[in-house]
Structures are given as C-alpha cells and as structure tokens.
C-alpha cells in the first residue's frame, strides 16, 4: 500500500511538473485512476483486471488502482460506476455478467448500455467443453451421440449458479443436441470442481481458466472450444464447428468501461493504453499463466457494438424457461 501511494505521489509530482496546462483533458490522466472490480479480490475477474491495470499504469504513466466492490453478482460495483463522476478517474472492469446476464435476468440499478462508455475488452474467454475421463467419449461427436441417448439422462453438468455462463452453455447444449443433462448448481465455479474431478458430475462447460490445471493433469478431458477459432492455449482442442456442432459459440468478456459522458479524448487515451495489451510480452505471459489471452477491441466503438450485440444475444437466450425463477 505504502509503495503504491509513494509511487502515486511521485507520479503526480512528475506529471504536474512536466505537463503544462493545455486543453482540459489533454493532461489525462493527471492523478491516479480507480478501476472498480465488482467482484472480490483473487478471483478470475480480479486477476485479469490487475494485469490490465499494471499495464495501463506503465503505458499511460499514471497509477491505475484496483478497488474491489463485490456483491450482488457484480451489480453493486457496476451501479457504483454508473453513478460515478464522468471524469475518467473512476472506471469499471465489467464482464458478461454485469452487462449482459444480470440486466437480462433481474432488476439492476443501472442501464448496461446507456449508463456506460465502453473503452476496450481486455479478454474474451471462450467456453470449453470438458468431460470427466470416465465419460465414454473422446470427441464432441461421440459425446453428442452419448448424451442424446438414454444414457445421457443419467449424466450431470455443473455450474456456479443460475444464469452463469456454465449454466447457460449447458442448457444451450441440451437444446441444440437434444440431450437431457441435469444441471447441478454450486455456489461458485471453484466449488463445482471437486465433484467434476471426482466424476460425480460428468460435464462442465465454462471458461478455460478454471480448468487449466486439471487439463494439464488429465483430471478432465477437453473436447471442444465454443469459439470461431482455436485457442492458442489449447491448440489441439477443436472448435465446436470443427467437431460437428454449428452455432454453438459463446464465451465471456472482461473489459474496461467508463461512466457515460466521459470526454472522447479520455476514452481514446484509455483505449490506446488497452490496445497495446496483446503486444506486451509480460502481459501475454501473465495472461497465459491464468489461462486467458489478451484480445483488446479495435476501437471503443467496436467494443460498444460488441457489448450491445452480446446483450441482445443473452436476452434472447435467457428467455428460455430454464433460466427463469
């Protein structure tokens, strides 16, 4: 803590000494920027955000400080930023959960589209279909044949709760393949792992990071990745389309957003910082260690477009009675 604040003070001194007063926002960022992570420290979102924040601090010469404001499945932190001053010093590290799932599933205190100015995605993580080694399928094709047969009705898939990516992926899989896998919810993705590794739950469809150690050890077998292209982290795992399941593409994004009304110059400055994520070797290395790839958006507008397209996709998908109370 002390170190950061010292560094921050130094940075403030340096920036005020060096930069002469120009246009109102040309100096941005002239003091430390707070990035609200709407989940608790140490989780997946937090890890991704901290690496991005370190990179931004370096790229823009100003401290980017993470503040964890968990609760309400991310809704509390997101609502805070939605109502924050639009000066570019309070930002949100948003996710599919805060901007696409929660607003479609329940009442939240913010408008995911109108209340925010998207800056750039940091990571888009695709859903990976994994099975316990006891499942008699070595490919997605065999799995689909197995799950849509009578034997499939005795199989389970797990998730970290109703409306999570893993739950939606599972129900979507059921619908598209005519299977009847039973959903077993847990109170978090981590908790769901024990029964998966033990084989009481046979399948799980979730973002790569949670599985990475267990794929390496052979405790779970990756069958397909629900993306348009293969992942660099798992080059041998085919995409769903390659493996014979079309239109099953989904994942979650993690990215930086500002409150609505932040000046365009500020947004552009921040985007320039995010855009170099994928070119920075340290970032690439740290991201691949936690099982994700840096995938910054081409422009703030492209990210905005992506978010609202995802919003519509999730709205339609969540209309399924399986996700309603």
């Amino acid at each position: 803590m002390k170190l950061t604040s010292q560094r921050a003070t130094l940075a403030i001194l340096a920036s005020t000494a060096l930069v002469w007063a120009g246009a109102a926002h040309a100096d941005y960022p002239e003091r430390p920027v707070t990035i609200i992570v709407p989940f608790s420290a140490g989780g997946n979102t937090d890890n991704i955000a901290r690496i991005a924040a370190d990179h931004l601090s370096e790229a823009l010469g100003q401290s980017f400080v993470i503040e964890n404001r968990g609760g309400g499945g991310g809704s509390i932190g997101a609502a805070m930023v939605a109502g924050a001053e639009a000066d570019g010093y309070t930002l949100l590290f948003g996710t599919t959960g805060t901007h696409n799932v929660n607003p479609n599933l329940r009442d939240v205190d913010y408008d995911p589209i109108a209340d925010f100015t998207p800056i750039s995605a940091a990571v888009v993580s695709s859903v990976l279909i994994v099975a316990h080694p006891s499942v008699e399928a070595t490919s997605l094709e065999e799995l689909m044949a197995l799950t849509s047969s009578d034997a499939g009705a005795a199989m389970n898939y797990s998730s970290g709760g109703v409306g999570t990516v893993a739950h939606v992926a599972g129900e979507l899989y059921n619908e598209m393949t005519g299977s009847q896998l039973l959903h077993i919810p847990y109170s978090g993705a981590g908790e769901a792992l024990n029964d998966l590794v033990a084989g009481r739950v046979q399948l799980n469809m979730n973002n790569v990071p949670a599985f990475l150690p267990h794929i390496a050890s052979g405790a779970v077998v990756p069958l397909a990745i629900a993306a348009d292209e293969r992942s660099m982290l798992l080059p041998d795992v085919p995409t769903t389309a390659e493996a014979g399941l079309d239109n099953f593409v989904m994942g979650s994004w993690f990215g930086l957003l500002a409150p609505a009304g932040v000046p365009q110059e500020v947004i552009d400055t921040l985007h320039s910082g995010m855009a170099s994520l994928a070119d920075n070797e340290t970032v690439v290395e740290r991201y691949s260690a936690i099982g994700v790839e840096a995938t910054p958006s081409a422009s703030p507008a492209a990210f905005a477009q992506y978010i609202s397209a995802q919003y519509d996709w999730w709205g339609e998908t969540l209309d399924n009675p399986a996700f309603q109370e």
Partner: protein
Amino acid sequence: MDNLILGLSTALLPANLLACFAGVLLGTAIGVIPGIGAMAAIALILPLTFSLDPTTGIVMLAGVYYGAEYGGSTASILLNLPGTPSNAITCLDGYPMAQQGRAGVALFITTVASFIGGSIGIVVLTLLTPLIVDVGLAFGPAEYFALILLCFVAVSGVGGADRRKNFVMILLGGLVSTVGIDIYDGTYRYTFGFHELIDGLSLVPVAMGLFGLSEIICSVRQSHERVKHKVTMRSMLPTRDDWRRMVWPILRGAGFGCFFGPLPGTGPSVAALSSYATERRISDRPEDFGTGRVEGIAGPEASNNAAVQTAFIPTLSLGIPGTPTMAIMIGALMIHGIVPGPMLIQSEPELFWGLVASFWIGNLLLLILNIPLIGVWVSLLNIPYRLLYPSIVVLICIGAYSISNAVFDVALMLLFGLLGYLLRSRGFALAPMLIGFVLMPMLEENLRRGMLMGRGDPVYFFSSPIAATILAIAALLVVAPIFGSVLRRRPRDEGSAKLPFNEDDA
C-alpha cells in the same frame, strides 16, 4: 528425508525466512483485530507478492493465513469478539475464563494448543498428502449431508440450560442463513430489494454483532466488578490440572482439524465446532461448558490450526480450493505460472517442500512471537472500559467495512448487535444461533444436490458406504441417550410417578 532437507534449504533462504516472518507477524496482527480475517489480509497483500519469487510470495501468503488463525483466539478470549470466524467457538469458554481473571492462562493454552494442532497438521500434510487427497474426492453431496447431519446431532447440546430456547436459536440461525440468492433456482430469499443481500450474509458481521457488540451493549447496563488482571509470568502459566485436562482435547482437536481441513467447504469453522461438541459430549460435566472450561478452548484452537494446515492438501495437490481464501492462494500460484495439481510435487519440488518446511518454521516463529505478547494483550484488559470499548466499536466497524468496502455490512453488524442484545436479555444463548447459521446452508445445499444427483430418490444418501456409516453414527447418537436414560431410570420410575422431563437436560 531428502525432501525435507530440500524444503529446509529453500525455506531457510534469507528472503523466504523474512517472508515467512513478515507473513506470520502480519497474520497474527490481522487475526487479533476483530473481523479482519485472513481472506481480507491476503487479498490486500496479494498484489505485493506479484513482484516476488513465487516460492517467497506463497510462503508469505500462507504465513498470513495460518498466522491469522493463531491470533484470532486473542480477541475471542479477551473481548468475546471472534478474530476470525473459526475462532467464534473459542468465545464460549475463553471469555468466561478472562472474566475470572484467567485471561493469561487462556491465551497461553490457546497458543500451545495452536502450536501442537498446527504441528500435527503439518506432519499429516508432510506424510499423508496422497492418502488424504483421495478422502477429499470421496466426499460428495451424500457424504457431506451425512457429515453435517452428524455435526448437528453432536452440537445439539451446546447452549443454555433451556433446550427449547436452544432449538429456537438453531432455527433462527438457519433462517438468517437463508438470506440471499437460492443457488438452485435463482430465487431471492429475504433480500427486501437490497442488492447487498443477494450474496447472503457473511459470517463476520453476524458473529461480531451477535457476540461482540451485544456484549458491549450489555456491559453498559451492568456496573462491573472489575477483575484486576495480573501480568506476571506466573499468572499466565496453566496449573498442573489445566495441563492434564488439555492434553487429550488438543490431540482430539488436531484429529478433527486434519479431517475437516482438506474437505472443501467445511474447513476450520466446522472442525472447531465438532471439536467443541465432542469435548462437551464426552466430558463428565458437560453442564460446565460455557463457564470457562480449559477443554472448551484447547480442543477448538488445536483443530482450527490443524485445519488451516491440512487445507493446503487439496489446494496444492488437486488444485481444488476448499475455502475462498484457498481460491485466492491458487490464483496467486497461477499468476506466477505455477499450476497446482497432482503434478506440482514432482514439477516444483522446491516450492512444495519449501512451503511445507516454511510451515514448520512459521509455527515455531508464531510460538516464540505469541508467548511474550500474552502479557501485552492481558494488560489491555486493564484499560478502563470507557476508553477500551469505544475503541473496540471503532475497530469492529472497520472490520465489518473491510469485508467488501461497504457501509452496508457495518449497518448489518450493528443490527445483529442489537438483536444479540435483545436475545441475551431474554435468556437465549447465542452459540446455537451461530451453529445454525454455519451448518444450515451446507445441509440444505448438499441435501438438494444429493436429491438432484439421485434423481429424486432419497436412497442416494445411503448408497455410499461412507455416508451410510456416518448416518448410522448420527442415528446412534440420537437413540443412545434415550435408551440409556430408560435403562437408568427404570428402577426409579417405580418409586416416583414424576415426569422426568427435565432430567435429561444434561
């Protein structure tokens, strides 16, 4: 042996030794401060460790984790404020001991118990890691359901003299624990439109309010006969009788800790609870529990310290976090490019054995650190209440706030303080409420998960030998006292026609 030497040579590197010392020191301090648990502390210093060597970083984080468990008992004993959730049970007999002027003794005993419990946990971690991993995986919803049910049966006697009141309190605790989202169908339970309540109530504000704050409110109305606490070394040493009484509880407690530590989801809190319930049950004077029994603090403290050590087994060897704190630990490893799992011991022997060796060193450091501190803590009690209590209220407010940087949790803590005060003044014991609050969600979650996995057939819960055995033991515990009292009472019943309702209160 080679492994241990490799471990020691890693752990004794100056950087790692320093990290270990810094970790346990910080952990003890954090543990002493009510409400700020290991999780908050670890989350706070996690970013600092990113720049360190992975082994050094994880040694430090681990030191904070088990150090907090050491320090956590201090506030429980001195102020009736659980330093960490798993120390809540230590309040029950620790605080009465302090009120009797035996705070120093209580702190000495918990330090020794923590050390022995922790050491046994480390031995188990060192020798039995592969074996215990399998035990962890063998536990699914059926086994957990049976285990939690057994816990419920075992702790049912804890609390005040009035059984009906205790029962009401268990139910009230269970009811409070249902607040939040129902993970099975997404329904909101008792959230009253507060987004802050969606994730449920966390144990810290509830326990701090119920135990600590209500104690402070109560004290305002009482005119205290202050016990003057002596701060001599002599007054801190347990008597020969204390030593004799604490040996077995410590060993049994360590056993509970080693068993519950590696099981995901249960961990130190349930270990401490089981240890306390067992000591009370097998004691020849169970009615004395809650009045300052040595067994009531030695067992739980040994068990929660053993549990925090053995909790590393599934974390390191399976990559499965048993508690949210362990999830952060895995995150810390992964961010350094180290993948926890069965391969870890082979691929990173220096890290694994270095960490294990640092546990030995850390435990020793904690013992050396804590014994001299006892005098300091005890002399805190000689500060006049009018100065001490306001500072404590400030501290617990900070603790409650630190959970998720939210004022809401502070308000919640105050609310539970008020509730605790009202319940106390009506003669309700608060311990059963805490037990209901901790165990009920686990019971519900595993019952419903088991019913799902069994496709609605309750036979599922008897289908595994482990679950069936545990359920049989639970049934035996319920039935045995009934038969026992019938057998004992028969000769007397002939002479007296009195209804023996109150006799089984013990």
